[in-house]
């Protein structure tokens, strides 16, 4: 599989995403500079974490006007899978490719720690390899990760089974204490209506090797790769 990892000025998890795709999973990939305008030849797009444009104005607010984002829209419209991680999730929300917004953590402080994730919707290109009931342990690192959407949107997300991950405790319970940022409904990640565009605040690319303390995040990338294989087999 060939992965595009977008690179905005001050993306800072771009190398990490590429590392996992190439060195851990053995796929091909390349960094795609934000001023480029084509994603030709790419099978999947990762929008990595960081502080694109310094997070000035709002997180992700400026990045969404980059030339490459038009290509991402077209790529997504054709059903290509797009995964936004952390700042990437924020950019996708700002760009309107995902509903809602990410606002300041309710602690007002940046939070970097491992959290537990419950996988809710298992029908998606990103969650297919995660076994039923498996709790993922993955780190977060953000100051503005509190998921917000109006009640109607939340209801729709639930109804359409578009909540992919929720913050939970070690036993899978959706407690207040397990919610690191105040996200409504403990939401950590969602997908679009067509299910091919997803965003999440936690960093699966930091939890894809045992030496870093957890390899749970790898399941998300492996799920994506296997979904792509299925899609190609269908097309062939």
């Amino acid at each position, binding site marked *: 599989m060939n992965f595009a990892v977008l690179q905005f000025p001050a993306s800072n998890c771009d190398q990490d995403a590429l*590392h996992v795709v190439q060195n851990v999973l053995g796929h091909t990939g390349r960094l795609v500079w934000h001023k480029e305008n084509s994603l030709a030849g790419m099978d999947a797009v990762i929008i990595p974490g960081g502080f694109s444009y310094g997070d000035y104005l709002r997180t992700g607010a400026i990045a969404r006007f980059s030339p490459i984002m038009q290509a991402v829209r077209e790529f997504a419209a054709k059903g290509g899978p797009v995964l936004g991680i952390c700042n990437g999730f924020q950019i996708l929300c700002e760009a309107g490719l995902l509903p809602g917004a990410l606002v300041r953590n309710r602690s007002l402080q940046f939070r*970097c720690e491992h*959290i537990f994730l419950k996988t809710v919707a298992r029908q998606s290109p990103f969650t297919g390899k995660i076994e039923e009931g498996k709790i993922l342990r993955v780190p977060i690192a953000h100051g503005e990760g509190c998921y917000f959407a109006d009640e109607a949107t939340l209801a729709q997300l639930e109804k359409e089974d578009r909540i992919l991950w929720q913050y939970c405790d070690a036993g899978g319970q959706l407690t207040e204490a397990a919610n690191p940022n105040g996200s409504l409904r403990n939401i950590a990640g969602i997908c679009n209506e067509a299910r091919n565009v997803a965003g999440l605040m936690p960093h699966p690319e930091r939890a894809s090797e045992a030496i870093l303390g957890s390899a749970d995040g790898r399941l998300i990338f492996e799920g994506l790769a296997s979904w792509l294989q299925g899609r190609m087999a269908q097309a062939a």
Partner: protein
Amino acid sequence: MSDPAITPELVNKHNLTPEEFDKIKGILGREPNYTELGIFSVMWSEHCSYKNTRPLLKTFPVKSPRILVGAGEENAGIVDIGDGLAIAFKIESHNHPSAVEPFQGAATGVGGIIRDIFTMGARPVCVLNSLRFGPIEGNGNAANNRRLFGGVVSGIAHYGNCFGIPTIAGEVYFDPSYEGNPLVNAFCLGVLRHEQIARGAARGEGNPVFYVGPATGRDGLAGAAFASKDLTEESAGQQRGAVQVGDPFMEKLVCEACLELLATDAVAGIQDMGAAGLTCSTCETAARAGTGIEIELSLVPQRAAGMTPYEIMLSESQERMLIIVRSGREDEVKRIFDKWDLPWARIGQVTDTGRMVVKHHGGVVADIPAKKLADEAPVYHRAASEPAYLKAVREFSLAPVPVSSDPAADLKHLIAWPGLASKNWVYRQFDHMVRDGSVVCPGSDAAVIRIKADSLPIGAAAASAVADKYIALTVDCNAAYVYLDPYEGAKIAVAEAARNLACAGAVPLGATDNLNFANPHNPELFWQLQESVRGLAEACRFFNAPVTGGNCSLYNQSPNGPIDPTPTVALAGLIEKPEHITTQWFKDEGDAVILLGDAVDEQDPLRGLGGSAWLQCARGLKTGSPPRCDLEKERQLHNALRGFIECGLIKSAHDCSDGGLAAALAECCISQQIARDTPRLIGARVDLSFGLAAAGRLDALLFGEAQSRVIVSTAPKDIVKVVERAKILGLGAAHIGTVGGAELAIKAGDWEGKWALNELHDLWWNAIARAMGDHKTIETEKARNP
């Protein structure tokens, strides 16, 4: 606009003595003009010239076969780590700016040290910090201390997180001596291949000189000179308007662009504009290369209108770099900096005159021999005399100190004492995992970072079919010890750092130090500095950890008095194989707990309680001679421990320091954090009765801080191997207990203390959040329902 006349008052205002002014006139062969006076004043400040400390710094060990760039040669030292790879690292202070404006002061401190590292051609891969504040608990001054502490932590978080570098370790202490004069020391480590080392030299006559980065404003005017004075309320107030503002976004772009440019071979020399900005970078690059440099100030991008040559030369606007480009390669600079949307300007060229010539709209505004300005600052051999307070310190005995009536309660107080408590309130605000290299995160004795191919600057990745490398890092200084015995205390700072590395499974590669001291003109305070340097030098030599560079921050005193002398030491070490990486927490039920080293130092009349956390926390006394540091014994311990680790015998290893055996055992039980709100607690049952007679009193056995001790755990089958081998190596070793259960139980003679782990964990984990007043208030407040 005309410059002010050069009067004795003006010279004095620039912190230059009449003798220094005469020397300047001698160098120039005439009176300096206003701009030149400003240039000399910053270059000859302590911050830039080390004029008060240079003779002492010469005593540091600086050589080893691994040193590629030594102390003082460049912006940071560089050490070989094998397979053609190297690390560049350095620590630097930003104390006074942080006292004035904690957020920006700390942020720009991080920015400055990151620039020092990528200036060397290395990709910065992690940062550490060492912080000191006044006490944060209670009312009164504590409120201001909390403001400074909170501001500094958010400033570091802001800069490091946005730049995208893990803040992977650090230390924080609280003591009244830092009230009003906090210490903020930042360390950065970068990685590169040997052939990628860049030099801060203006080589090649005719080569153009480029300025890259944001425009120059009036920020931090003469900050270097400001850092070289006592901090007074007046100076703090005056400086607030001039504090530098950091832009980590800009720094990230400048770093990437510089590394991309360095990979093209178009660069003849590169230096960041840190303290004294344009002044320091131009004269130092010319001095290093033995060339001259000529710049035109009207070409320098400027943010404010009507800036004078004096202001442009002394500005400390952040994130700026000076690059000397090989003639004919200018277009590559333009291409790369345009790609990153960064401002650049060609502002001058290298000459063969040996002079730093500064022009403004064609007229010469400064003309100074570069080498004399950069390298021939006056050097002072300051008077030193032993401080009077030490007499009482040495005479202190335990006799009048009441024996602890409730050691079980004392342990709870100790581990909730902010200096000893978990620092998660701090490090959970730092991104400590970005870049996929954080193998051991904050919370163990030493952090461990993985160096992999993409940790390197671009241009190297292709040539890197090398195995991953593992670097252990720690930063240490128990300043109470140093205050009570500067020589012994400084030795302990190094010994403890080296012990932390050994606990992680690492061999020291090199050291960097930050000498935070008070006014050197006071002979008693200078004595502290002199004795500390003697201790640091001896210990660094002993552990084969040459000093690769560092920083001196003098004049750290507020109207309340001087700070405790704080020679912070950061050590980097190499771990040969990933399976040797060891953490401090107990692992499995049924494992044996073994103490390596002697439970009690019988030659210490205070039995390890002098200067101890217990004496400070439980008795309100900061006195008594600190524990003795026997370097030979310490080295034996480290070698033995590393040997055991390499043989696969050790499951956990934890340095025994502040709070003694009891605190160390508690930390072994409660310090593993699985995830948010999810510690892994594992109990232990320990018997220390064998040490009671030697200790003489129970509190000394439990809380004494004798050096050269490590608590390890092993599988039951390996007990005999570890204990016997240690004894053969001449090292004390005792099997003191077993891991398991839901409580920590320590027995000593007739006494037995028991602590529920969840209670200990809560006290230790949440102590700082409680002191800061935001424990579980905002954090868990329900989101407002729309």
